């Protein structure tokens, strides 16, 4: 039992920190730390910087062009970049489709797509959910019909995050309607620039545009873009979901947000004293901090015990991670008092400053609280995660 980082890990942390200090653009960091809107170019700029360093896919195996970081190194990387205010890495290519391609993709897919992901060439998005299939993913209806050397895809995906920027989408599609629903699903890689694809924004309750509907009308997809075997899409999807859930604990980002919360609580006043000195508010902050401390240890335990592909226990990380994220947004909003009320989308960029309307950190926080209600819904709602644990871990 030794909870200290090894000398190598400590050195790696220093290396990452130094790199981030030297290379993370200040304007991007400020946007992240102040909860402002990130443009496509912000993500792209930072991912290009990492790609140049060879770190965009640092956690990938060396054979696929990664650095073969250990899970602990990857955690350190997450933590350091998050702390400094780096944007999250868009996971759809790096952490979602890439593991599937590595495990089940054709040589060409590996050669072609993995290198383009690693070099930040393609922006990927995820085509899973449909209007009628949210939690019940296997009921999806988007059809892909084989027609010579390509498929014709028709249907609709929804809740597609940042599809408006995407070059590629990985999709679960139905290739066979005559078998059990899980068995008729295939996994396709589709060029978002293909004729027949329309992206329509979904505006969220904070009036932001982050998710989309994606419509497919007779979209031609080469058969070479089928991953693995036809009808095995469900297997690949489950494989992917396991990978998705580790990162979702979001410990690094939550630690940063906790610091921000403490900073805000120092500035906000209650009866002429810092809000952070209020025993009730301080206790609530401390309880989130304690939960987060426990979660961080739980993440490390999972990483230590399993290496890469976490089992259903990883659902815990999703549940606790998102609960903590929400608790932090809630406390930040509460901290503002009446200044939680102003809603000024123009303050989501760095250009428009207006010190008249409350402290400069205030404007995005209530909107962010509402936006973050999504985190217990997406990626398999927390109810679905609990069902998974009940069945797969507890045998209920």
């Amino acid at each position, binding site marked *: 039992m030794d909870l200290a980082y090894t000398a190598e890990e400590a050195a790696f942390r220093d290396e990452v920190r130094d790199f981030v200090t030297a290379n993370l653009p200040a304007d991007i960091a400020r946007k992240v730390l102040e909860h402002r809107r990130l443009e496509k170019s912000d993500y792209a700029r930072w991912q290009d910087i990492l790609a140049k360093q060879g770190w965009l896919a640092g956690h990938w195996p060396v054979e696929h062009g990664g650095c073969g970081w250990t899970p602990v190194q990857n955690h350190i990387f997450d933590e350091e970049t998050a702390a400094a205010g780096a944007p999250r890495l868009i996971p759809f290519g790096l952490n979602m489709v890439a593991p599937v391609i590595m495990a089940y993709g054709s040589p060409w897919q590996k050669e072609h797509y993995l290198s383009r992901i690693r070099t930040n060439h393609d922006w990927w998005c995820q085509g899973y959910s449909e209007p009628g299939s949210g939690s019940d993913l296997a009921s999806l209806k988007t059809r892909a019909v084989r027609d010579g050397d390509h498929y014709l895809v028709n249907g609709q995906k929804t809740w597609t995050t940042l599809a408006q920027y995407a070059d590629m989408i990985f999709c679960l599609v139905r290739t066979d309607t005559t078998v059990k629903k899980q068995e008729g699903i295939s996994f396709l890689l589709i060029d978002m620039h293909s004729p027949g694809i329309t992206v329509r924004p979904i505006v969220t309750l904070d009036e932001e545009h982050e998710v989309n509907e994606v419509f497919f009308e007779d979209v031609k997809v080469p058969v070479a873009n089928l991953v693995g075997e036809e009808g095995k899409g469900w297997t690949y999807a489950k494989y992917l979901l396991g990978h998705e859930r580790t990162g979702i604990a979001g410990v690094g980002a939550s630690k940063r947000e906790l610091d921000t919360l403490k900073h805000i609580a120092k500035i906000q006043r209650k009866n002429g004293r810092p809000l952070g000195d209020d025993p009730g508010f301080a206790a609530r902050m401390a309880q989130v901090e304690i939960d987060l401390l426990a979660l961080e240890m739980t993440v490390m335990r999972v990483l230590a015990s399993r290496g890469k592909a976490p089992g259903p226990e990883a659902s815990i990380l999703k549940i606790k991670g998102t609960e903590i994220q929400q608790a932090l947004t809630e406390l930040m909003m509460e901290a503002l008092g009446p200044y939680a009320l102003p809603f000024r989308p123009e303050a989501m960029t760095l250009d428009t400053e207006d010190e008249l309307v409350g402290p400069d950190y205030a404007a995005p926080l*209530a909107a962010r609280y509402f936006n973050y209600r999504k985190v217990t819904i997406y990626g398999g709602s927390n109810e679905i995660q609990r069902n998974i644990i009940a069945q797969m871990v507890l045998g209920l």
Partner: protein
Amino acid sequence: MDFSFSEEQQLLRESLARYVEREYTFEKRRAIQRSAEGFSHEVWSAFAEMGLLGLTTPEEYGGYGGSAVDTLVVSQVLGSGLVVEPYLASVVLGTGLVARAGSTAQKESLLPAAARGELLLTLAHAEPDSRYELAEVATSARRQGNQFVLQGHKAVVPWGAQADRLIVSARTAGGPRDAQGISLFVIERGMKGVGARDYRTIDGQRAAEVKLDDVLVGADAVLGPLDGALPLLEAIADVGAAALCAEAVGVMETLNAQTLEYIKTRQQFGQPIGRFQVLQHRAVDMFIHLEQSKSIALLAAVRADSADAAERRRAVSAAKAHLGRSGRAVTQMAIQLHGGMGVTDELPASHYAKRLTMIDFHLGDADFHVERFVADARG
């Protein structure tokens, strides 16, 4: 003990509910919010015609002399319909203050016009660092001969850029947190030195930062007792808080109904999601919150007019704290039960959710009112 509403109250509720249902569609609300002023003069006039705007105005000034229970009836329907118009600011707080403490001249000049919908009032009280403390006033009113010079910054003033008259609190004596030394002034929005920075609020309304820069007013602008306005502010804030509780109940009632409807119709795994026991129990918790909220909001309304300040404060703080917490809990469950749809702008429920959540931030949040409840009991 009698929990029934009077015939007049029932009629009022029904006619308002009918109007809101027919005229105040969700699309219309959206258009109103996006308009320059953020509220609809047409709706406001309709409210005036229905007698809503003079509901609590004394009869001799063209109103109906109604009670806080009448306000509850109206506020609850406004909540159900998610009406954004400045009823709380102008009718409950503004008119309420003038009716309670105004001179005859002030009443004559303000009340009938406000009741007719021709004059919009608001209370400009909070300040950047005051949070919810009513006694915390840094804005100053310096005597200059027979006049006063106002200087200060009023924060998150509801409809501060739309109101015709602002009732501004300012310090005529004492230090920044003293109970004594606070006075109220009625000022015109267009006066020299009055600046209002208008913005939307996340719950669909408008507010403004109001800067007072050497604003010169006459002694006749003073509303209520010089130096001794705090009890008056406390009383009207409680009436306002009770109205907010009633509005929250209306919002919650609709939000619950929408959520119930959604889980009865949304199909997953071959059945409506409302068949899943976990979601059923969540819906039951929402229902229990609603019933308990109705109860405590009623108590607050009945006590809001009480001459016994301790009784009034106890009931209002209990209700506002309760609604703060139950509103938060219900909102979170409602969004979660709606799944992805719950976080879209397109769905009415998400707008109900925003209002229900943010009511906690008006006139004292749950923490504030729990602490007041405790402090009052300690005496």
